[in-house]
């Protein structure tokens, strides 16, 4: 089955430098709604910068970022912050949980910031902790949790607002293989259940194996040879 879908996120000729060091040299890509896309490449190839630009965390120096047909790179920081709270979820390698809050409070935080009531936010947080398999740590603080539990908690927090797009930057980079695998399996399962689009940045081939499609970056652009490795997604008939 092949259904042509409009891209949910697009990049057009993105350029971004850090001082004199170019990180992105004209990156163009389309992310299809519902797909899990892996962006791979060695350290320093620009993949994290690309993710930050796509997620509206960072502005490109030139080029356009388009979300559901509208440019977001030229909108205000406030507008992009709203987008990140409502439509986007972000998952990093580590260090994203508030250490003074319990798992449930961490997961409830984005909902509270969006104006939800405390009880409603806690109920949703508990449901998400259950969904990612760590209901037992709901009242524990990050310091009392294992690395895998913390990362699942961060995954629940990234998904609690039911974002349309999840941006994940080396989400299992700090975990051992088996724990990382469990987190990725949860991520893939939940993304498919909720039809969440995922942009996954990784330098590990085995992590990219969880994606429907892969794009390889090198020196701030898609690897010319690597571009050929993009395979049509459609594992799930989308």
């Amino acid at each position, binding site marked *: 089955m092949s259904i042509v879908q409009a891209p949910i996120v697009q990049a057009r000729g993105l350029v971004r430098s850090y001082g004199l060091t170019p990180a992105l040299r004209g990156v163009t890509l389309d992310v299809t709604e519902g797909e899990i896309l892996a962006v791979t490449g060695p350290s320093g190839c620009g993949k994290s910068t690309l993710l930050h630009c796509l997620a509206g965390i960072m502005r490109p120096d030139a080029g356009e970022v388009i979300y559901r047909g509208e440019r977001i790179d030229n909108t205000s920081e406030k507008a992009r912050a709203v987008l990140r709270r409502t439509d986007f979820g972000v998952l990093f390698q580590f260090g994203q949980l508030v250490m003074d809050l319990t798992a449930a409070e961490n997961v409830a935080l984005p909902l509270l910031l969006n104006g939800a009531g405390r009880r409603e936010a806690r109920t949703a947080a508990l449901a998400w902790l259950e969904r990612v398999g760590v209901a037992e740590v709901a009242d524990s603080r990050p310091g009392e949790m294992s690395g895998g539990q913390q990362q699942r908690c961060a995954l629940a927090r990234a998904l609690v607002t039911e974002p349309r797009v999840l941006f994940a930057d080396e989400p299992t980079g700090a975990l051992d293989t088996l724990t990382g695998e469990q987190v990725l399996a949860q991520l893939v399962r939940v993304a498919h259940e909720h039809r969440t689009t995922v942009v996954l940045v990784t330098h*590990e*081939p085995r992590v*990219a194996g969880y994606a*429907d499609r892969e794009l390889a970056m090198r020196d701030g652009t898609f690897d010319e040879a690597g571009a050929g490795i993009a395979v049509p997604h459609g594992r799930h008939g989308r």
Partner: protein
Amino acid sequence: MSAPFVLLGLLATGAKHGYDLKHAYDAALPRAKPLGFGQVYATLGRLERDGLVTPVAHDRDQGPDRTTYALTEAGQTALDGWLDAVEPSAPHAAGALVAKVAVALLAAEPERASGYLAAQRAAHQERLRELTRTKLDPEAALGDVIAADYLIAHLDADLSWLQTTLDRVANLRREVHP
């Protein structure tokens, strides 16, 4: 050749006849080279000759005679010895992949080698995705998951090597054509 020891291992869980052994072998090693019925019976014959298994029953259940085999004490010792022996790592870097890249670099332009490496990487990545899907299937049997893990780990190593080699070829090109 591990097949005789795998059969000994399967018999360690209880006496079986050839037909059951063949199916137990396929279930334990779902992604191994399949073992034919002929091979199972021939191997059992050799194991019996060497005193490692022994026939314990003959029955005929609406078909040909079937012999049930059990592990002997010598068979258990042989199995333990095999399980305890450390497997050496591959002694030579002589796979087709290494050979092809070496020849491409010697006999062709770096672009040719680079193109080959990229195409090989694409094929490996696709296989890796396919194996990952196998693992994500909630119905996957443990044997399937273990076999997929093994293949994924080797593909991962190959992919790292391919990436490093692509980088080396790119550096080489920069040195030759600065």
